[in-house]
């Protein structure tokens, strides 16, 4: 088990920079999730860690060793591929044993027959056999050790790929979207298995995904990436509660955080016609009165009412989605604008979650009132957060070890 440290890691293809100046310290035993939309460079970063891509600039250290100049085989990192990348011509047992055979590989193993016997000898040695059988048992693969990968289901193949990584007892596990080829139900049970694996093996994990549910439930820390840059590094809770900028705010949370255009007016916030007093603890930094800001409010921090005489943001219900325990109401605003249109998202719409079965229907006139206690403010031009951190309760550093997987 080792710590990893990335120092100014950069990747360029010709003149194009795909990853710029990534600095991350990963303590030993951490489950670090690289999260971001496709094309953000998260997989490239993982492949650079593994040695499958060269590092254009910067350094990667594993414990006290510098590894970015070493070939993949010398880094002692296991890699789980999205496509599983099992060896199709080998049985499950051979697939899992393969890294152990390669560890004792000599050049003369290439000689036909002679090499064959040498490999079988390693394979049948008690310590290798015991290790492989134990790995298979943990992953419930014992029944299918003599089958070929093509006869296995997606979930079984995934477990074989995990087994091939585990059997090496590596310093670091690297996983590149290992669950994205599985169906939803299997994905949630494999999620639980990987969390359990991390707890039992205690290795350092680096896990790439574009799925925020995976990131929030599995990671002890998340690196949220966009356009080749780390937007924010923090625990899932930090990232959810205190997004560093509007990209993070929009990316995390289903439905996403609402971003509403507003103006700072002394100790008040002007949202369209509405004036709302600004709670003192938000403590706006580096923005003067009169500045344009974006107010970020989670859909569950908004209240919606059909009484149009109440103060609030005026709007018309566009869509009501009943999701069982709660309802998601999409409201088209009459005046104040929201900031989602920049991404081609929903312009001038606010999403509100209401507990229970909403009685609203499309077309009703409503008023939305906001609770600014849990709100965050962003500068309208740079998108950076300008309000203070909302303090988090202690003991939330390792949510993956506490959370039960969701189903």
């Amino acid at each position: 088990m080792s710590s990893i440290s990335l120092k100014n890691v950069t990747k360029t293809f010709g003149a194009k920079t795909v990853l710029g100046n990534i600095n991350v310290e990963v303590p030993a035993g951490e489950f670090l999730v690289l999260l971001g939309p496709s094309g953000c460079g998260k997989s490239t970063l993982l492949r650079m860690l593994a040695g499958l891509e060269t590092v254009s600039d910067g350094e990667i250290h594993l414990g006290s060793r510098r590894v970015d100049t070493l070939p993949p085989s010398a880094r002692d990192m296991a890699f789980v591929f999205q496509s599983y990348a099992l060896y199709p011509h080998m049985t499950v047992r051979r697939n899992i044993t393969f890294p152990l055979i390669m560890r004792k590989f000599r050049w003369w193993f290439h000689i036909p027959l002679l090499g064959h016997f040498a490999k079988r000898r390693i394979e049948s040695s008690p310590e290798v056999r015991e290790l492989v059988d134990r790995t298979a048992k943990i992953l419930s693969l014992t029944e299918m050790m003599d089958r070929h990968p093509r006869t296995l289901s997606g979930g079984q193949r995934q477990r074989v790929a995990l087994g091939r990584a585990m059997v090496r007892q590596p310093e670091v596990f690297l996983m590149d979207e290992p669950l994205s080829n599985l169906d939803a139900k299997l994905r949630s049970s494999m999620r639980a298995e990987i969390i359990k694996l991390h707890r039992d093996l205690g290795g350092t994990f680096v896990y790439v995904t574009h799925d925020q549910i995976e990131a929030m439930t599995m990671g002890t820390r998340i690196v949220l990436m966009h356009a080749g840059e780390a937007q924010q590094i923090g625990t899932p809770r930090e990232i959810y509660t205190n997004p560093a900028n509007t990209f993070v705010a929009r990316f995390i949370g289903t439905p996403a955080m609402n971003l509403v255009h507003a103006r700072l007016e002394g100790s008040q916030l002007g949202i369209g016609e509405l004036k709302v007093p600004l709670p003192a603890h938000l403590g706006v930094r580096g923005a003067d009165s009169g500045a344009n800001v974006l107010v970020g409010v989670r859909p569950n921090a908004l209240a919606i009412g059909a009484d149009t005489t109440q103060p609030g943001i005026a709007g018309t219900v566009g869509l009501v989605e009943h999701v069982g325990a709660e309802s998601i109401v999409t409201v088209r605003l009459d005046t104040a604008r929201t900031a989602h249109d920049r991404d081609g998202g929903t312009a001038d719409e606010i999403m509100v979650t209401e507990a229970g079965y909403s009685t609203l229907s499309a077309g009703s006139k409503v008023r939305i009132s906001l609770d600014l206690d849990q709100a965050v403010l962003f500068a309208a031009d740079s998108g950076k957060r300008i309000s203070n951190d909302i303090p988090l309760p202690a003991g939330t550093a390792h949510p993956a070890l506490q959370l039960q997987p969701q189903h």
Partner: protein
Amino acid sequence: MKKTTLDWRQALLMIVILGMLGITAFPIYWMLVTSTTSSADLFATPPHLLPGLAQWHVFRDVFGSTDVGTWLVNSAIVAVGTTVLSLALAVLPAYALSRFRFAGIAIVGLALFVTQMLPEAMLVVPLYAIFGQLSLLNTLTGLILVNTAFTVPVITWILKGAIDGVPMDIEEAASIDGCSRLGTVFIVVIPLIAPTLAATAVIAFFHGWNEYVFAQTLVSAPELHTASVGLAGFVGELSTPLHSVMAIGLMYTLPAVFFYLLVQRYVVAGMTAGSVKG
């Protein structure tokens, strides 16, 4: 009702397949008939369609009167040598063409094709001079070398296509598991392209087995004649002993057919390998 239509279609398909099979196999059968028909009946109308059992001694006779045994052995040496050498020489260039990006890769690929456009006959004279200096005239090694030179470019291209179909992930997994680049080729890539290797082995084997121009010109010693040259030697100015030619021809054809039957399972898999990914 539907079932009977299906059966009827299958029967028709079967008839077509059998017909085509007949057309393909007929020359071989005709060689058997001709070699075992007496000279008097050869040109009879209507022709004899069944082999004459009384004439089986023709096969024994040709072994007695000619060196057909030696010729077949020489052909086998040349064909097997060409196959082994071609595959050994083509695998690594094919891997490089498939996996590496280097300056001039397009030119290398093109050059491989250009070599296929030169007629063998054009190269006979310069090769004769070169082989003379290298003491390769009158050797089977020389024939293996020259045949290999003609098969390697084709085989390289076919193998490149097969290696293109091996997912990069699998190679990367092997490198993470501790394989060197060369180790990856031998341990992972070659087993995965085995069907295509079998298909290219057939190509190389047939080329070596059938080759005539170089076997005729670069080798003059009778004990080093291949079957193709030996067979041609029967075609005389005044008369051609049809029985013997056909008997030897049959013996010349059958080993190649058997070799093909041996690997055909893989050849078919190899030919469809490109279309199905995985």
